[in-house]
């Protein structure tokens, strides 16, 4: 924590607020995206809070596990949820001064997310079914290509802000608004949008609504989950989506994030974040509505494109220094 930062109590309140916001907001964003899709297809669609109802229903059910499964299957949802919750708590979502903000390094956040991905991939393999293994193999292939693009894109931002600390990058962007329209930022933005789409399993990379096991990526890994375990996995996925959307918006459109220590500022930041992520969710679902799913072997090309943009962002930034 920076020496002139707000008191510890404020940081604790802010982090709790962030976790609560993402636990509720992640599923709501999914509901919103489903709603936009339904409307575009000429249907009324389920209410936006349907994913929350589904979660409540799942959590009330018994968790059944396959006979031959090991502890991995049981522990994986907790790892996903734990690592995501930690990442949410220390990321600059509503304030630039969350708990442990000094450790909220971009590498820490990226690898916390990666921990969750690896836990899911191991869970996919654990039951020994063909679908789970297939999903894990695909998810790791895509993850291995997406993570570097994400890292390099955020490095471009950190060169600009001369720090790899995410809250500091957000704070610096607020003080230098002109940064948001530099070529570096725009290139990095496109790269990160591609990564976020891949990491959250949206079209054109993965189709979250399909029932076709052979085409699945993320869903294939979770096929063996049922009841409360499935609830945890689904909540984990929704929180990841919420976190990635919120980080994306805050890195590129940081206004509204509280920089001081007033509680009122925090509340305003919550409203701003809700608005920003909703806008992004609507935009992403509109992209989804008008795109079809890429052939699996085209996905690496898309991610390679994202990586190249990220590298270009770094080069542009180094050249303009």
């Amino acid at each position: 924590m920076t020496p002139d930062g707000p008191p510890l109590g404020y940081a604790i309140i802010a982090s709790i607020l962030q976790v609560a916001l993402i636990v509720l907001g992640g599923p709501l964003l999914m509901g919103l995206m489903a709603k936009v899709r339904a409307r575009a297809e000429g249907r009324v669609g389920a209410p936006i809070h349907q994913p929350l109802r589904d979660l409540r229903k799942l959590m009330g059910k018994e968790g059944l596990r396959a006979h031959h499964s090991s502890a991995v299957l049981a522990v994986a949802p907790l790892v996903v949820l734990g690592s995501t919750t930690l990442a949410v708590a220390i990321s600059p979502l509503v304030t630039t001064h969350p708990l442990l903000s000094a450790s909220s390094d971009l590498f820490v956040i990226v690898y916390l997310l990666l921990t969750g991905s690896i836990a899911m991939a191991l869970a996919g393999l654990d039951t020994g079914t063909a679908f789970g293994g297939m999903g894990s193999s695909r998810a790791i292939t895509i993850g291995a290509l997406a993570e570097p693009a994400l890292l390099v894109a955020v490095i471009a931002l950190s060169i600009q802000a001369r720090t790899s600390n995410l809250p500091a990058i957000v704070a610096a962007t607020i003080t230098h608004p002109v940064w948001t329209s530099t070529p570096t930022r725009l290139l990095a933005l496109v790269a990160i949008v591609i990564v976020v789409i891949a990491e959250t399993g949206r079209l054109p990379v993965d189709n979250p609504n399909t029932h076709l096991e052979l085409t699945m990526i993320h869903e294939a890994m979770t096929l063996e989950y049922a009841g409360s375990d499935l609830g945890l996995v689904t909540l984990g996925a929704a929180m990841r989506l919420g976190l990635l959307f919120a980080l994306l918006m805050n890195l590129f459109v940081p206004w509204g994030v509280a920089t001081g220590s007033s509680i009122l500022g925090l509340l305003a930041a919550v409203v701003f974040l809700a608005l920003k992520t909703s806008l992004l969710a609507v935009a992403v679902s509109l992209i989804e509505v008008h795109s079809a799913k890429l052939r699996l072997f085209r996905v690496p090309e898309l991610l390679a494109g994202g990586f190249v943009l990220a590298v270009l962002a770094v080069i542009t930034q180094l050249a303009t220094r």
Partner: protein
Amino acid sequence: MTGRRKTLELPASALHATAKQTLESGYRLALIAAHDDGESLRVVYVFTSGPPDHRLELTVRLNPNDPRVPTLSDLSFPASRFERQMHDTFGVIPEGHPFLRPLVRHSHWPEHWYPMRHDAGPTPAMAHEGVPYPFIEVRGTGVYEIPVGPVHAGLIEPGHFRFSVVGETILKMTARLWFLHRGIERMFQGVNINEGLQIAERISGDTAVGHGLAYCMAVEEAQGIDVSHDARVIRSILLELERIYNHVGDIGAMCSDVGFGVAHARAMVIREQLLRLNESVTGHRLLRGSILPGLTSVRRLPTSAELDNVASELSQLMEFISSNSTVFDRFEGTAVLLADDAEAIGTLGVVARASGQRVDARHSQPFVSGGSAFRLITQSQGDVLARFTQRSDEMRNSLELIRGHVGLSPRLESSEALSQPGSASGLGIVEGWRGSIVHRVELDVAGVVARCCIADPSFFNWPALATSLADTIVPDFPLINKSFNLSYAGNDL
């Protein structure tokens, strides 16, 4: 109108040579129908060619205690499958067959129980778990198997697919079907001809007109009834209505499988409009009940405005889909069924025509003449895109066909008196929306159905699906399967 059927009875020893000569002179094997007459077994081989419409039946009588026929599997691939079917249900042994594995018979059936034999009796108790089907195993570094089904996610019919895969590339796929075997052919035995229609319309729920009409035509031929031209025109309109509503459904389903949900939704809207049109024309959304043996009746004909509306909505939908480059990329070059393979396998219908085969019963065995705008459309590529385009082109042609037929202002109802015939047989051939459907009906002296033998085009096309999978990847399979959209119910009977 229908071509004269030539029949020839010959000893089993002469079968192979005659069949060879027949196939070489341009006929295709349409059906192999075995019959148990009590004192003897009889196998009828039906060959067709056209145009002009030619039909030839070769009949062989067998000793019921030791029923053997020489195999035709070296001459015709479909013959090898009909022979396996006949082996499972009648116990007729095709001598020299290279691959006599069970086809219809699942391993929980009692050994040596042949359900189509007259002395089969009631269905015996089935074992709970049979011996696993001996799938051919592919060995090698990194090869693994993916078993899928028979129960699938979503509302689709049951079938088991066994993939041998390296990474994502499919090396071999075997489809194990007949989970939906309901004993349809056995059900036909002993029903009166109108009850038979009820069964025929329900062989495959989406092909009520195709199977219903093939059955009626077979019965009418057996009874010597010549249906009026007006009735034929109405029947042709119904057949094309069935083709359009199914093709548009397939086009939507193919879009849905590549995640293009909006196009799927729009296709389903058009399909629903067509189903409502069906209801107002025939009183049934799936067109049941308008065609009976000797009888054809509809409430009204589609109007020109309705046809225009469907045509314009279809072309808008096609424009919308073809403007999406990702969809195009997914379709193009995926699962190519080569023309040579399509021919050797004996494929029929949309699948065959998308691979350049000029097979269409509306061309080779037409049942209506005059005022027809029918064109025999084919594609050359044989990929998913070709099957997609083929459906789109056929729908457009079907609309023109309907328009032409409606322009003839046929009478809405027509009926012919059924005769009280002796025992007789008849053959019905109809180009259903999936391909050529053949029914061969034998009536006995009391005017009831003694035997109805059915060949659905899916029976011919299933092996082509597996063949087209060379060099494809696992996540493309659902799309490829949808592009074939073969019937499980029609195949399994």
